[in-house]
């Protein structure tokens, strides 16, 4: 049975695209057949995060307007043969697509793939409506900041109004050190306010910037704690129960030495 999950947040810059890329990579690494759709028409970025920007010939709008077949627009990942990207158009805008067309597109994709992941644009207008149109489930990404949580709350309301069942939450850019000194909202504070189930906490980490620079999502890096956080989210998404959360304490000198020596950080998380 295949499933379409939309990754959304309301606010921009909280990590929707990074989350979409890493969740897709992690699910594909588990052996699932995954299609990830960039629904941010006019401001595409998922191609860059996945390192597939040089392979784009056709895009989502071409498919919807019938200029090419779906299969022609899907780009196979260079590392995982069961991961495919459907890029957004860069020279069009959100009005080029409507929710009904998206619903049909997702249906077509679901016939071929186990998971269809939709990277939703920021905002609550057309792009958001298009993104949730074909989705079965929603994952809300937030950061531990007042503005991001406020927007997440608004989005949760809209997702529920659209009759998507219980959205789940990812807390991104979490900094344990700041939480420890009382300068960042902790997991429980955020859950108390947003009142939806948590599906992952992702530490704020330099690895994310390095992986974006290289076009290789951090989930590929089995020595990275952030990568491990995403891989565990994927396990929860695919239905595995009681997957423990990664340790969020700052990495100590010893961990760095082990990592430098090429030993997996897995033991520590």
């Amino acid at each position, binding site marked *: 049975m295949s499933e379409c999950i939309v990754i959304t947040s309301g606010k921009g810059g909280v990590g929707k695209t990074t989350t979409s890329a890493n969740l897709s990579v992690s699910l594909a690494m588990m052996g699932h057949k995954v299609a990830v759709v960039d629904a941010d028409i006019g401001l595409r970025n998922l191609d860059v995060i996945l390192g597939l920007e040089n392979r784009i010939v056709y895009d989502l709008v071409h498919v919807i307007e019938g200029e090419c077949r779906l299969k022609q627009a899907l780009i196979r990942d260079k590392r995982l043969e069961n991961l495919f990207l459907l890029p957004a158009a860069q020279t069009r805008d959100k009005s080029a697509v409507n929710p009904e067309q998206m619903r049909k597109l997702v249906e077509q994709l679901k016939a071929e793939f186990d998971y269809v992941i939709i990277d939703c644009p920021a905002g609550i207008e057309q792009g958001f409506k298009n993104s949730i149109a074909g989705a079965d489930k929603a994952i809300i990404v937030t950061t531990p*900041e*007042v503005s991001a949580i406020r927007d997440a*709350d608004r989005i949760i309301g809209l997702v529920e109004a659209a009759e998507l069942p219980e959205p789940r939450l990812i807390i991104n850019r979490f900094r344990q050190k700041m939480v420890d*000194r*009382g300068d960042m*909202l902790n997991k429980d*504070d955020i859950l108390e*306010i947003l*009142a939806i189930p948590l599906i992952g906490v992702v530490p704020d980490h330099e690895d994310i910037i390095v992986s974006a620079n290289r076009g290789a999502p951090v989930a590929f890096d089995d020595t990275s704690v952030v990568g491990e956080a995403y891989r565990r989210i994927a396990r929860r998404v695919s239905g595995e129960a009681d997957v423990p959360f990664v340790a969020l304490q700052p990495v100590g000198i010893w961990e760095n030495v082990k990592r430098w020596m090429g030993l997996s950080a897995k033991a520590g998380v």
Partner: protein
Amino acid sequence: MMELINRVFGSRLGSKDDAKARLKLLLVHDQVDLSPAQLDSMKAEIIEVIGRYVEIDRDSVDFKLERSNGEIALVSNVPVRRVVARAV
């Protein structure tokens, strides 16, 4: 080091408490879509009605919208001085 000094002298509360308090208020207002002015006039009217039946301490009336687990409640604490003669 500053952290240690702050901790020793206990001079500073974490800013997360500010964040949480502001968020709670913000989300209630976002959700009910009532301006502070509308909220004030609702408060005045409700106090007016209660005042017809009991004598209340108007200065210490506590009246606020609260949210827990996604649901909003109007929480009010109205100290009663004494019950006035029934008008009705």
